[in-house]
């Protein structure tokens, strides 16, 4: 049974800070009992599958590595209408994906949650290696606290 709120961690833990979303969602999964109305999902780099993870939910919270022009390690909470994607897609492959475009499709299909919130975290390093950079690792507690406060507000 789907819960009304879903938290999706996106990214690849084999690509250093790109894995921040997956890392944080795995930490939340360990305290999932505190949030009976929330599903925590490691969505990895599954692209369009996100569409089916958010369908039927009241609220979706994404945690993702994001280039936002901020200092490395900065976390920002935003909604899809507050940003514009500057990502260039080649449309050559299913293997490229952009959550903002997937959300646009969900809207078009009438399957988007009432509320969508994105936590973007500016990376320090994105390269082939396991583990987060020190800059992000040092701020994990801050990230968890900000997202917890979003969930406590939304679980209401």
């Amino acid at each position: 049974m789907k819960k009304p709120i879903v938290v999706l961690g996106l990214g690849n833990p084999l690509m250093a800070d790109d894995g921040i979303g997956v890392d944080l969602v795995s930490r939340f999964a360990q305290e999932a009992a505190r949030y009976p109305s929330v599903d925590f999902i490691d969505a990895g780099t599954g692209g369009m599958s996100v569409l089916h993870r958010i369908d039927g939910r009241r609220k979706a919270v994404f945690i993702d590595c994001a280039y936002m022009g901020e200092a490395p390690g900065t976390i920002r909470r935003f909604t899809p209408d507050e940003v514009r994607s500057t990502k260039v897609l080649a449309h050559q492959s299913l293997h490229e994906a952009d959550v903002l475009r997937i959300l646009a499709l969900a809207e078009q299909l009438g399957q988007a949650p009432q509320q969508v919130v994105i936590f973007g975290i500016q990376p320090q390093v994105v390269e082939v290696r396991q583990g987060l950079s020190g800059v992000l690792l040092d701020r994990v507690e801050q990230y968890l606290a900000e997202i917890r406060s979003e969930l406590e507000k939304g679980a209401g």
Partner: protein
Amino acid sequence: MAKTVNINVHHVTRVEGHGNIVVNATNGKIEKVQWQVPEAPRFFEAMVRGRSYEDIQTIVSRICGICSITHSLASTKAVENALGIQVSEQADKVRILMHYSEQLQSHILHVGYLVAPDLFGLPSVVPLVAKAPDAVMAVIRLHRLANEWSDLIAGRTTHPVTLKPGGLTKFPTEKELRELQQRLKNSVGDLKAVAAAVLSVAGNLPNFTRETEYVSLKQDNPPTYTFYHGDITSTDYDGAVSIHDWQSVANEYVSDQSTAKWTKWHRDSYTVGALARFNNNAPLLSPMAKDVARMFGLTQGCCNPFMNSVAQIVEAVHVVETSIEMIDELLTKGIKPESVKTSPRAGKASGCVEAPRGILFHQYEFDRKGNCVGADICIPTNQNHAAIQKDFEKFVPEILDEGEDAVRLKLEMLVRSYDPCISCSTHMLNVEFVR
């Protein structure tokens, strides 16, 4: 009419590498036609060195978010071959069922979200919702079914968790299998709707042919349209090569227009993927899949790369129909609990499965403690790069007179028809704030 064309579809984003399309022609004389590939996910080979045989699957499942089950299965089979680990018939069958879920998912996504917009003359799937709502909704429902099917058997859709050397950590219950089977039966209408929608615009698939070699798995015992077991064959080769000798098939080499390794076997390029499997194994398709192939006029020996998307529809039908039968077989025998114990030893071996976009090879070597000391992965996309280049070289002169925009679109469609996996390792956002 002599044409001057300058195309440089250059995607400069460094992290998510894309292929670049370059065509230069002056007054009808072609100076340069290139498919340039800047990146391939081979770096992951270094990442598994020193890791236990039990950890390999978890790592390689992250190589690709679309083909994570396929990478998991290829690596697990390689580990089992290297360490002499046997798998029960039940586990083998459930794994194939898991693999089919990914074939359906990837094929439906590719045809519905990437190829259909081209055929309907639209830039993406978003405007297609308004133009062909019933077909898009059928695609979405099939994609959802494939996702939930993967969740049930693999533990989750992206990056499976139930696979382990020797078997699976968890089997679906008989009740869950019966429910899945019913949903698969119910999906036939949606499959037919997608096939009919694509057929209605199939005239927009370019009529382009280049004779080439098609490489895939084949399985004789029992004869099967295989994605999982068997040996390597091709349309140029009557026999079969053991998957353990895959390097003698791939013959990887370095091309100066790419950082990815390219491959060739009996010719200067070969092609892998749904059309390759079809060309080698078509008589073994399920009855409904054969009907769909007939509907599109797709016959064995087809050398039009654009028909790969049609072969994907045929295979989507095949995996659904075959899975309905396989679930019957599993239910007849009943699902029995299994516990698997494995122990390390030294060994080196390969594992091979068909990814949705073509044959995939993994090879590992382990020391006596079961720690990985070497890895070699050859992905289907790398095996298709030379074929894309050769297609470009034949196709561009045939369409040059149509002008720059048409040439660009058709070359992009050609690349899309292969659905290359060249940008799957990361998916981060790239945004600017507007409010």
